[in-house]
C-alpha cells in the first residue's frame, strides 16, 4: 500500500487512451484563430465546447481595457482582497455587479470556484443543514463538505422531492441553506426556479442560486434564471463566474442581505488567495457593460442554440432534454464516446468529452456549447461533423 495506490484507476485509463492514440483530457489549444476557431491537437477546428457564450474573448473594448490596466497597474495585485489586493477596479466592479443585479451588495472572488465553494462552506456550518440539487457542480459539493453542515440531496430539478425533504427537517429549516443552479452545465437544463422558490416560501430557509451558465442569457436584463422565472426576491444569494459569458476569470456573489459585508471576512477562499489581476478586472468590467449594451448577443446565442439543437436532433442522436446554449449528446458506451470525440476533432469540431463521474449518469456525453460569435454556417459545420462521424463505421 502507498499513497499512490488510489490513483491507479486514473493511470489505467490514461494507458488505455494512450493505446487508442487519443488525448481528450488536456487537449492542447495551440493557436486561436478567433473566438470560435482554433488549432487543437494539430487540427483546425470550430470551438464547440467552450463556455464563451457571448463570444466576448476577443472583443476590442475588452482587449483595450485589459491592456490599459496592465500598463497602469501591472500584471498582478500580489495580495489578498483583505490586505493589499483590493484596487479601485475591484470595488468598482462590485458596485457595477450590484447595480446590474439590482441588489445592495456584491463580492468579487478570484474564481467562480472560489465564489461557490466559499459561499457554500461559510454560510452553513456544523449543526446547520444544506439541501442541494443532486446534480450540483463539484464546487458546490466541495464547499458544503468543507463547511461541515448536514448535507441532504434532493432529486435533480424535482421541487416535489425538495418539498418532502424540507418538510422532514421540521424546526431545523431555520438553519437551512438550499442550493441550486440556474442552467446546469452538463445537460443545459434549467432549474424550475419558480416552483423551487414556492417550496422555499412554504417552509423557509435561505436560497442560493449558482447562475454560472445563465448570466447574460436569460431574463429581461440577462440576470439569469431567477430573473426569467420572476423570483429574484426569493433568491437570497446569486453566485456566478466571469469565466463564461464574460470571457475572463473570477467569480461573484450578490445579495440584499446586509450581513454579506460581514460574511465576506469569514470566507476563506476570499481571504487566503490573491485577488484577480487588474487586467482581468478591467476586461470583466468592459464585458459586463457590453453584455448590457448589446442584448442582440443574447438573441444570436439563442438562435445558434436552436440551430445546433435542431440539427443534432434531426440526426437522430440522443440530445439533452431542452434547447439551451449547452447541447449534450449522450453516448452510452465510453469507448464509443472517446472514438466519436476523436473523429469529431479530425472533422473540424472540438466538443467536450464528459465521462462518469463528471457526467450526471452512468453514460458518457459529448457536450457541445454555442456562442453568440458562431455564424450559422459554423453551426451547420458542427452538425455536419456529427453527421460524418455518425455515418462512418
Amino acid at each position: 500500500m502507498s499513497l499512490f495506490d488510489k490513483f491507479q484507476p486514473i493511470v489505467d485509463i490514461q494507458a488505455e487512451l494512450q493505446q487508442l492514440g487519443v488525448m481528450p483530457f488536456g487537449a492542447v489549444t495551440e493557436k486561436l484563430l478567433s473566438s470560435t476557431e482554433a488549432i487543437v491537437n494539430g487540427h483546425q477546428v470550430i470551438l464547440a465546447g467552450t463556455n464563451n457564450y457571448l463570444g466576448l474573448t476577443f472583443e476590442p473594448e475588452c482587449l483595450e481595457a485589459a491592456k490599459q490596466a496592465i500598463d497602469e497597474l501591472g500584471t498582478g495585485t500580489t495580495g489578498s482582497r483583505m490586505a493589499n489586493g483590493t484596487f479601485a477596479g475591484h470595488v468598482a466592479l462590485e458596485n457595477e455587479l450590484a447595480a446590474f443585479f439590482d441588489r445592495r451588495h456584491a463580492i468579487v472572488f478570484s474564481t467562480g470556484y472560489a465564489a461557490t465553494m466559499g459561499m457554500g462552506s461559510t454560510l452553513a456550518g456544523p449543526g446547520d443543514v444544506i439541501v442541494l440539487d443532486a446534480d450540483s457542480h463539484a464546487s458546490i459539493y466541495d464547499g458544503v463538505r468543507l463547511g461541515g453542515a448536514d448535507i441532504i440531496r434532493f432529486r435533480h430539478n424535482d421541487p416535489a422531492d425538495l418539498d418532502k425533504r424540507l418538510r422532514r427537517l421540521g424546526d431545523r429549516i431555520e438553519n437551512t441553506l438550499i442550493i441550486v443552479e440556474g442552467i446546469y452545465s452538463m445537460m443545459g437544463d434549467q432549474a424550475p426556479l419558480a416552483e423551487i422558490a414556492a417550496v422555499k416560501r412554504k417552509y423557509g430557509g435561505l436560497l442560493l442560486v449558482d447562475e454560472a451558465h445563465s448570466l447574460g442569457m436569460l431574463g429581461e436584463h440577462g440576470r439569469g434564471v431567477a430573473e426569467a422565472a420572476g423570483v429574484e426576491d426569493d433568491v437570497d444569494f446569486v453566485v456566478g463566474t466571469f469565466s463564461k459569458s464574460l470571457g475572463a476569470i473570477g467569480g461573484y456573489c450578490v445579495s440584499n442581505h446586509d450581513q454579506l459585508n460581514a460574511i465576506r471576512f469569514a470566507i476563506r477562499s476570499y481571504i487566503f488567495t490573491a485577488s484577480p489581476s487588474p487586467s482581468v478586472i478591467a476586461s470583466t468590467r468592459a464585458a459586463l457593460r457590453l453584455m448590457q449594451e448589446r442584448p442582440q448577443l443574447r438573441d444570436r446565442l439563442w438562435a445558434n442554440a436552436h440551430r445546433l439543437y435542431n440539427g443534432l436532433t434531426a440526426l437522430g442522436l440522443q440530445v439533452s432534454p431542452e434547447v439551451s446554449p449547452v447541447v449534450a449528446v449522450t453516448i452510452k458506451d465510453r469507448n464509443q464516446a472517446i472514438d466519436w470525440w476523436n473523429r469529431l476533432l479530425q472533422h473540424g469540431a472540438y466538443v467536450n468529452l464528459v465521462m462518469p463521474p463528471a457526467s450526471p449518469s452512468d453514460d458518457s456525453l459529448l457536450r457541445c456549447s454555442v456562442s453568440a460569435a458562431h455564424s450559422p454556417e459554423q453551426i451547420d459545420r458542427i452538425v455536419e461533423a456529427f453527421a460524418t462521424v455518425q455515418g462512418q463505421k
Partner: protein
Amino acid sequence: MPDYNEYLANIFAILKPFAKQGILLNEESELVTELGLTSLQVMELIEQLEDHFDMSIPLNILPDIRTVHDLALALEKLNP
C-alpha cells in the same frame, strides 16, 4: 421509533435487487467492496430508506459506513 432490527430488515429488503447475484446478505456484508454497489446505487439506497422511514439521512454519515450493520446503527442514531 423503529429499532435496529427494523432498520436492518428494511436495508436487507431494499438491497436485495441491488446486490450482485449469488451473494448472501448479512449484517457484515460490505456495501461497496462486497455487494458491488456503485455510488449512484448507494444514493438510491439512502433515498429509499429516507422515504420508507420518512427521515433525513445526511450524506455526512457515508464515510463511516462500510457494512449493513454500520448503516443500521447510523440510522438508529439519527432517529433515536
